[in-house]
Each structure stands twice: as C-alpha cells, then as structure tokens.
C-alpha cells in the first residue's frame, strides 16, 4: 500500500475500532442520556470510518470497498492505535479513552481540513464538528467524575492511569506520515502534542486531577502489533461476514 492509502486506512481503523467499542455500551450505559451519547459517538466514528476506508480502498485500487476492509481483514492487518482498542472497562475508563482520543482527533481533523488533498480535507472538515462534540462531552465527564465523589474520583483516576500508556503512540511519526505530508494529505502529529497537552491539562485542572505519571509508552498498533483485545473485538464485529460471506439484507 502506498502512503496515502495507508494513511486513510489508519484513520479509518482508528474510527472503526473506537466506534465498535463505543457501540458495545448500547443498552448498558449507566443512564439513558449516557447511552444515547455513547451510541451517537459510535455512529459518528463509524460514519467517519466508512469514508476513510472507502478512500483507502479507492486509492489502493484493488477492488476492496469499505466493507471489505472492515470485515475481511484479520488482526495483524489493522492499523489502529492501541488506545482505541482498549476494553471499555467501567464508565470512567471509557470516558478516559474518549477524552484522550477525542482531543487528539479534533486537533488532527482541524489541521487535515486544510490539507491540499481535497479528499482528506473534505472528510476532516465534516468530521471535525462531530469530534468537537465528543471532546466536550468527554471533558465534561472527566470534570464531573474527577471532581465528584470519592468513588467516582478513584475510578476516573484509575481509568486515566490505565489509558495513559497508550497516549504517546497517537503522536508518533513514521515514514508513511512523512510521505503523506509531502503528498498533501498528512498532518504532523508530533506537532499537535503541545496543544493537546495544554487542552488535557486545562481539563484535568478543572477536574482537580493530576496528570498520570509518564510510563514507558506501548507502541505497535500502526504496524499491526495489537493487544489480545482486538481479536476478540473483531470476532464479534466480523462474525456475520465470516460465517456468511457477502451476506446482505
């Protein structure tokens, strides 16, 4: 795959896997409003995934559409970052994941919306408004749980502690990213870090929470080295197309 196809695939995989994770909450969230919020964010992510995977398939030109890329690949072919595949855990852990990723995704799409490659720019310009909602919602919950009861505070802190080790991977740049920038579609993700840190720190301060201590970052998602959790997720998400290839209704 060339750099642009891989770039679209990574964006699509992040959105698809996060969307699937959020969708797992449907009907199980602690309150109706939260259930709706999580399901709506899942829909947004899956919508974005559809666009990016369709674009990846079009650039690749091997006859694979968005569905083929979503349902007919195995774990090692997925290029999502490790953060988005982390299990939902309790509500605070899900919010921690959403908080950390949504602010990254929002900054990323803000920059990508002005990319020279109109295909990437169009999807990003559309999605950036949705990610603004996600970032705001997650931030509100981080504040509410962090500055809440002893129980909610402990859970919010534990959620952030677990997710924090997957933060650095979001901002890692490799050759594919450099090539994509030269081709007019990429974003310098490393350059987003300072602004991301500032936004996260501002919310954590309001939540009266400390930033978790730095840990050795866990990397490898972009190269297909995933946690065992992704396989379980795929076995659920891909079941129908694996059992009944090409099924439609």
């Amino acid at each position, binding site marked *: 795959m060339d750099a642009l196809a891989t770039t679209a695939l990574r964006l699509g995989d992040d959105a698809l896997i996060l969307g699937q994770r959020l969708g797992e909450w449907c009907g199980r969230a602690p309150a109706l409003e939260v259930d709706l919020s999580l399901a709506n964010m899942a829909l*947004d992510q899956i919508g974005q995934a559809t666009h990016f995977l369709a674009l990846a398939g079009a650039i690749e030109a091997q006859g694979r559409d968005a569905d083929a890329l979503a349902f007919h690949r195995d774990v090692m072919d997925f290029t999502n970052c490790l953060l988005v595949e982390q299990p939902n855990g309790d509500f605070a852990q899900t919010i921690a994941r959403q908080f950390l990723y949504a602010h990254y995704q929002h900054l990323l799409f803000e920059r990508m919306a002005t990319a020279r490659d109109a295909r990437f720019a169009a999807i990003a310009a559309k999605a950036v408004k949705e990610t603004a909602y996600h970032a*705001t*919602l997650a931030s509100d919950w981080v504040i509410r749980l962090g500055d809440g009861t002893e129980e909610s505070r402990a859970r919010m802190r534990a959620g952030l502690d677990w997710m924090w080790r997957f933060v650095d991977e979001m901002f890692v740049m490799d050759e594919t990213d450099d090539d994509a920038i030269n081709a007019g579609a990429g974003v310098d993700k490393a350059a987003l870090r300072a602004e991301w840190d500032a936004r996260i720190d501002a919310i954590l301060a309001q939540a009266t929470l400390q930033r978790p201590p730095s840990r050795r970052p866990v990397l490898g998602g972009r190269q297909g080295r995933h946690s065992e959790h992704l396989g379980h997720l795929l076995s659920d998400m891909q079941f129908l197309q694996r059992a009944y290839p090409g099924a439609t209704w």
Partner: protein
Amino acid sequence: MVTPGRELNSATREAHAIRAALADVPDPEIPAVSVLDLGIVRDIGADRVIITTTYTGCPATFAIERSIRQALDAHGFAHVAIETALSPPWSTDWITDSGREKLRAYGIAPPPKGADAASLKNGAPAECPRCGSSDTEELSRFGSTPCKALWRCKACAEPFDRFKCH
C-alpha cells in the same frame, strides 16, 4: 434584459421541475421537513442531483438517497443521477427559514444561525417550541438521533428536542 421565468432555457426548466418533485420528499427521521428544507439537496442540474450528508454517521443517509431516487423515478426523472458531495460540509445554517418554522411547529427547537452555531457551550438557551420561553436547560447533548440534543423547558416543564448546532 432577461425577465426571470421567461427566458428560462430547457435545462433550467428541467431543474425547476426536479426541485418541485423533491419538495415533498420527507426526511426519514423528521418527516415534518423535506430534504429541501434541510439543505440536503445541494444542487440540481438537468441530469443530476447533488446531495450531501448531514452527519457522517447519520443512519438515514441511505434512506434519504432511496427516497430521492423514488421521487425522481415517479416524476419521470429516471435518467437523473444522484451524486453525493462532502465538501463544503453541511451545516445547520443550510436549513431554510421555512424549514426552521416547520421544525418549531413539529416540536423541535431549530438551531441558531451563524456564529452561535459555532459555540457548543455558553450559547443562548434554546427557545421552547411549545411555550416560547427561553428559561430552558440542556439535559443531554446527544438525543434521539445524531442531529438532536435533549432539552427541558423550566417554564412549562416539557422536555423537547433541539436540532444540534452543527
């Protein structure tokens, strides 16, 4: 001088006829408004209709395209193609004034226009579509569909949907 409506060429007349055919195609989630009211139909030519999606994950996207296809076919425009364009991105400012009134009458507070729509927080409170009071509060930023948030009127105590600023 060209008199509007008199010197229309055939392509323009055809576009007008297509627009008329689409005027009654309802949004599948909010049937009180049409696809034209919502600004989903971006451009109409003699041989194609360009539509846009409201939210990337809107599950109604396919239903909307199918409804438009059926309306075109039923009015003798089977040869007219439907194309989807993402850019420029749809925003709630594309909802027409009459569409906003229809939303209000249906019980959904229409989104504020322009700059207000850019601000998620600290925006002006929604006006209750039932009693008109501005003494309202947001209950949930995400509502029954991707395009709506859940609000409550503190004056008449009724909950209501607000079309999300987008």
